[in-house]
Every structure is written in C-alpha cells, then in structure tokens.
C-alpha cells in the first residue's frame, strides 16, 4: 500500500517547511497524530484548541511563516473559530487542519460532527472539505499557497477520518492551479507616478502605515519614503513597529485612543498616503469627517479594501513593498519646514500624558518595561485598556515586534500567541502584557507554557475590573458599573506557582523596576501581578463614530 491520507498530510507539512504544529488530539485526528512521528515536526500540545490557533497565529506574526494548528472534529474544530476569525481580520497566514467524522457519517448529526467548513466560510480566506483521498495532496498544497500569498489569511482543511486512513494514489502537483486566484503584486506604474506627483505638489502630506506594511516587509521602504520627502508618519495599531517610535517624523497611533497630534495631523493634512491599511472605524472615527482636507492615496494588495470605507483619489492595488520600491525611484527629496514645525508644535503642546499621583499607574509600568527592554522585546497583548496603554507607551522599534488582536479584538489572544511567538523566536525576549479579564480567558495555557519551558514574561495589569468596559460605563453610562467588577479573581501569584511558574506581586511604583528586572533575568515563565489603579482611564478618547477632533482627556 502507498501512503495514507494522514501520511500524505504529514509529508506535505514537511515539504511546506513546517517546523512546528500546535494542536490537540481527538478521535477524528487519531490517524493524523499517529502519522506525526514520521516527520521531525515539533508538536505543541495546548490545553484548549483556541490556544492552538492563537499560538499558530503568534508564531506566524513573528516569523512571517505560515502557522499550523490541528484540532479534532466537532468541538475541537468549533473551538478554533475565534482564533480563525482573529487571524482573518488581521491577515495572518494560517493553515488549520481539522478532523471530520468519516464520510459515511457526514450529514447525519454523528458524534462530534460539526459542519466546520460551513461555519468558517466567512472567517477563512478559503476552506476545504476533502471528500476524495486523491484530492488531499492538491488541496494541502493549495491551502499553503492561498494562506501565504496575496493578502495572507487562514485556510482550513477538513479531513474526514476515513480519508486520512485511505490510500492516496495521487501525488502532489508541482504547481497550484487556481484560475480564480491571482493576487496582484505589481502596482500600476501610471498610478505610482500619480502618487509621486501628488507628493510633489502636497504641502502637508501624512503617511498612514498599517499592518500591510509589516506583512509585506516594507518597513524600510516606508521609512525611506518618509525621510526622503519629509513626510510625518502615523502607524495604526497593526502597523506599530513599522517605524521606530523615537523617529522625529513619527506621530504615534491615530484613532480612538490615538495621540492628539496624530489625530490633529489627520485633520490638517492635504494628502493622506494610506499604506496597507483598511481604514477601520476605530482609526477613522466618523467617516465623513475623516481627513476632510486631504486627497487620499490608498495602496493595498486587496482590491476590495480600496474604496470600501473611505473615498480614494489615487488607488493602487499591489504589494506595498513593491509599490514603495518603485515609488522611491520617482520621488525627489523635499523639505517642508512649515509643516514639520507645525507637527513639532502639536507634539509639544499635547503630548501623551498621565498623572503618576496616587496608586500604581499601568502607563508607568509600560514605560519602565520600555526602558528596561529598550524597545527590543516582542510585545504581545490581550485586548482592553492594557492593550491601548501598551500601544501608546511602549517604544516599539521593529516590525513584527507587536502582536495584538487588532481587528477582532479577541480577549484571551495574548497568552497562547505569546507562547507561539516564543516558539518561533526562541532567542527573543517575549513579554505578554495582559489584564486580569483577558488573561483568565485562556489561562489554561500556562500549562502549555510551563511544559514547553518557554520563558514568556507576563505583565498582568490587575485592576479587578474589565477595565475598558468599566471606563465606557463610567463615561457613557453615567458611572453605572454593570458586570464589570471581577469578583473572585484568583491570587495570580499562587496561580502561577500552581502551574510551576514564578509569580511576583507588585503594589507600588518602587517595586516596578526591580520586579521587571528580576523577571527578565529569571528563567522560565514569570508572572508579575501588578495591582494597578482600579479606575485609571485610557486617554485621549474619541467616542465611537465621532469625528477625530472630538477628543476627551489627554490634556
């Protein structure tokens, strides 16, 4: 007998250069797990399938390679859903392999059967249910191709148990053939020429750099364009790290919790150069008032992003790196002393600020972390206030050094993603910044981390609240706190210790630096339980769907 479906699957992983898979076994993937030892692929056993998909996501975001996770049929597969949606929103290349009940049981509500291709249709770039064993080699090759090319995204391959057990006669095709899938990498030269012209004639240009710049590896080109034409740069949450945060042209993040100067610059610029961004509502605020005085250039690899949310004057479909490289050949050095002076003035008059008075401030912890790691760490966050403070106050220096669920806003993303990131970059310092709400959503992955020995440092902003929701209740519901106080939080130090990790409690400013230093020097996972000011708010704040000029706080 030739190879079984399971063996073909494992061999294909090897051919695709997969070094590690994150997964959780079960009945329908028994055969696949049985075949795993035939290859030198590392398998990371998580404690919940959501951990597997987030870990694969974290691995993919730091390495740029395609992350792979495996789950069994039914609940195993449905537990991947949040992670797939997370990866889809943030354009992360993933291949998810799910087991499925045998073909003769399909459609009969069999034990652990779920229509996972139906369920994940809107949250995957593509998916497959493999009904014929001979399709498996082609499907797997296509899956990796689709996940990693064009605008990256997750692809799910659903493999019935009997398909994995049967003999596969077909061999892997040398090339993929997908007549309906032809990503455009080269930007149209005429359009690129138009960008150059627009930059030349602009007096107040502004670059808005998004996750697409990081995904395409175009940080160097983006910075070069900014410097050559003296264009101030703002990066979205997903673009953090694309531009060194201490660069004089850097404006920080725009939008709901953006800097006052980035938001003001968006209002005052006469040319907005959007690079690998999708003009999310958290960035634009009220869409009619967004960049109201500017012509808008939009460069993106996904044609459907162009014109989706904002009107665009110069659209360019293509890979950002490619487009920028060409553009750099067309632009001439320029100086804009007036505009730069105006930006400098805005930066000085309305800097990001917080008061250190009173209880321990989370912003201070992020700043200390930044000083100690000199912006060189890989920072992973969960979702909420701590995420925004990290985005605001950590001095990012490198692309692929900030991992966060930007589009979907998935609480519980952080710990498994940090594990995945550390597996991908074993020699890097990986720090998870999280909150007591988010952390408990996938806290079971502490076991995965400890068993792997990954030295992730956990900075837990413990305020006893679901802080971001509490902040909204304070500001928008007249302070009526409903279901946001986290009664019954565990002792996180003891919890860490129970898993065999190190836990340290910190309650005041004086303790922050020594604790961080100690954690960074200690082997293995260390959890720092920072008891922070419970009712500290994230400012500035632009309320949802308001113009970016309607900022609350931050003065």
């Amino acid at each position, binding site marked *: 007998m030739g190879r079984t479906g399971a063996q073909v699957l494992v061999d294909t992983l090897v051919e695709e250069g997969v070094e590690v898979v994150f997964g959780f076994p079960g009945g329908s993937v028994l055969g696949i797990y049985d075949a795993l030892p035939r290859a030198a692929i590392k398998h990371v056993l998580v404690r919940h399938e959501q951990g597997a998909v987030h870990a694969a996501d974290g691995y993919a975001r730091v390495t740029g390679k395609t992350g792979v996770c495996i789950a069994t049929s039914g609940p195993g597969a449905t537990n991947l859903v949040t992670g797939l949606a997370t990866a889809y929103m943030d354009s992360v290349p993933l291949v998810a392999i799910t087991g499925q009940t045998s073909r003769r049981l399909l459609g009969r509500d069999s034990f652990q059967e779920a229509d996972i*291709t*139906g369920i994940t*249709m*809107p949250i995957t*770039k*593509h998916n497959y*249910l493999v*009904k014929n064993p001979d399709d498996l080699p082609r499907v797997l090759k296509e899956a990796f191709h*689709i996940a990693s090319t064009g605008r990256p995204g997750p692809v799910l391959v659903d493999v019935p148990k009997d398909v994995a057990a049967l003999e596969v006669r077909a061999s892997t095709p040398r090339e993929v*053939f*997908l*007549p*309906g*899938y032809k990503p455009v990498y080269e930007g149209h030269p005429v359009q690129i020429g138009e960008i150059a012209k627009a930059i030349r004639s602009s007096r107040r240009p502004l670059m808005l750099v998004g996750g697409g710049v990081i995904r395409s590896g175009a940080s160097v080109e983006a910075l070069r364009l900014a410097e050559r034409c003296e264009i101030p740069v703002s990066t979205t949450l997903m673009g953090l790290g694309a531009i060194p945060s201490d660069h004089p042209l850097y404006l920080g993040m725009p939008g709901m919790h953006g800097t006052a100067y980035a938001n003001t610059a968006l209002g005052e610029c006469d040319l907005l150069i959007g690079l690998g961004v999708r003009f999310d509502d958290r960035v634009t605020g009220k869409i009619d008032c967004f960049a109201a005085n500017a012509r808008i250039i939009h460069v993106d690899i*996904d*044609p*459907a992003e162009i*014109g*989706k949310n904002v009107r665009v004057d110069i659209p360019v479909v293509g890979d950002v790196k490619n487009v920028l490289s060409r553009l750099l050949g067309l632009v001439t050095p320029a100086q804009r002393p007036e505009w730069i002076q105006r930006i400098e003035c805005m930066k000085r008059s309305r800097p990001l600020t917080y008061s250190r008075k009173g209880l321990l401030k989370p912003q201070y912890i992020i700043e200390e972390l930044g000083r100690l790691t000199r912006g060189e760490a890989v920072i992973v966050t969960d979702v909420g206030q701590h995420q925004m403070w990290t985005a605001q106050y950590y001095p990012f220096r490198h692309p692929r050094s900030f991992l966060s669920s930007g589009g979907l806003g998935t609480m519980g993303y952080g710990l498994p993603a940090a594990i995945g990131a550390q597996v991908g970059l074993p020699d890097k310092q990986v720090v998870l910044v999280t909150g007591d709400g988010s952390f408990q959503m996938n806290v079971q992955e502490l076991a995965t981390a400890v068993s792997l020995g990954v030295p992730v440092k956990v900075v837990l902003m413990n305020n006893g609240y679901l802080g971001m929701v509490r902040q909204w209740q304070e500001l928008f519901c007249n302070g009526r706190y409903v279901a946001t106080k986290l009664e019954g939080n565990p002792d996180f130090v003891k919890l860490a210790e129970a898993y065999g990790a190190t836990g340290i409690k910190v309650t005041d400013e004086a303790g922050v630096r020594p604790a961080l230093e100690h954690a960074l020097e200690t082997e293995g996972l260390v959890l720092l339980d920072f008891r922070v000011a419970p009712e500290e708010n994230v400012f500035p704040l632009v309320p949802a769907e308001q113009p970016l000029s309607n900022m609350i706080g931050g003065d």
Partner: protein
Amino acid sequence: MKHTIVATVVNHPGVLARVAGLFGRRGFNIESIAVGVTEVQDISRMTIVVDADEAMCEQITKQLNKLIDVIRVRTLPETDSVARELLLVKVAVDPRNRSEILETVSIFRASIIDVSRTSMIIEMTGDEDKINAFVNLIRPHGIKELARTGKIAMARGERAIAADAEECLRAV
C-alpha cells in the same frame, strides 16, 4: 438601481453557499440569482441581479472576486446586453376565460405546455418587462402557481466571458 452581475465559478461543492453567504453577511440585496453549467465542464455561470448604488456594486464585484472559486466577475452594461428569464405559470381556467387566455398567450408568443380541465401551465421566455406585463394580464384569471428562473444575461458582440475561463482551464 439594478445591476446585472455575471460570475463564472469553479464547480466546487459549496460555491453557491459561498456566494450567497457573502451577499448575506455584507448586506447586499440579491434580486435574483440563476446558476447553470457553461460550455466548459466544471465551470458554472451565475447571473446575479442586485439592487445597489454604484459604490456598492463595485464592492460586490470586488468581494466576489476575492472568493477563490470565482474565476471572473463582470457587470453587464444595461444597454448593451441581452437578458432573458423563463416563466412557468399555472392559471385557473374555465370555459369563460379560456379564449382570452389563449389570445394573450399568442400575443406574447408564450406556449401552453400542460392542460387540464381547470388549469393550464404556460411557459414564456422574455426580458423582465415582458414577463411582468404578461403576468399582470394573466393575474385576474387566477394564478394558482408561478415560478421564474431569475434572469440570465450576456453582453452583446464578440467579447465573451466564459471563453476566457476556458483558456484559464486549458493552461492545466
């Protein structure tokens, strides 16, 4: 405004679900959708009529193009394309209205494909306006059952959509 979109798709299982799901979750309104095989094996053609403004129509086209199983998407120009629909309608018939119905059928070049003592089934093809006009004339007689296929359409002239797809497949 109504737009007619033609998409050639690879005949994989679930491709209709992908297209229909896309319209549902993005809030695009489908007036009609007609699916059938083309001259090329493994390739189907969908004719989708949507009610949308220009910007939304462009989004629909782009989102359709993002589906891996969708090979080509074209919006047909209103003036320079032909569109047809097939109608089957079962009408209540008695001796008093029989001749009037027959006359209407004849005027519209429709045909009667089934007759019983109290009903007949009428078949007709035509563009939307013609079918609507016919249905309106027949309605007072009592429509017992009505089915329409939804529009299928093609641009006039030499340029063809599915032929392109065939070239794609020939490259295998």
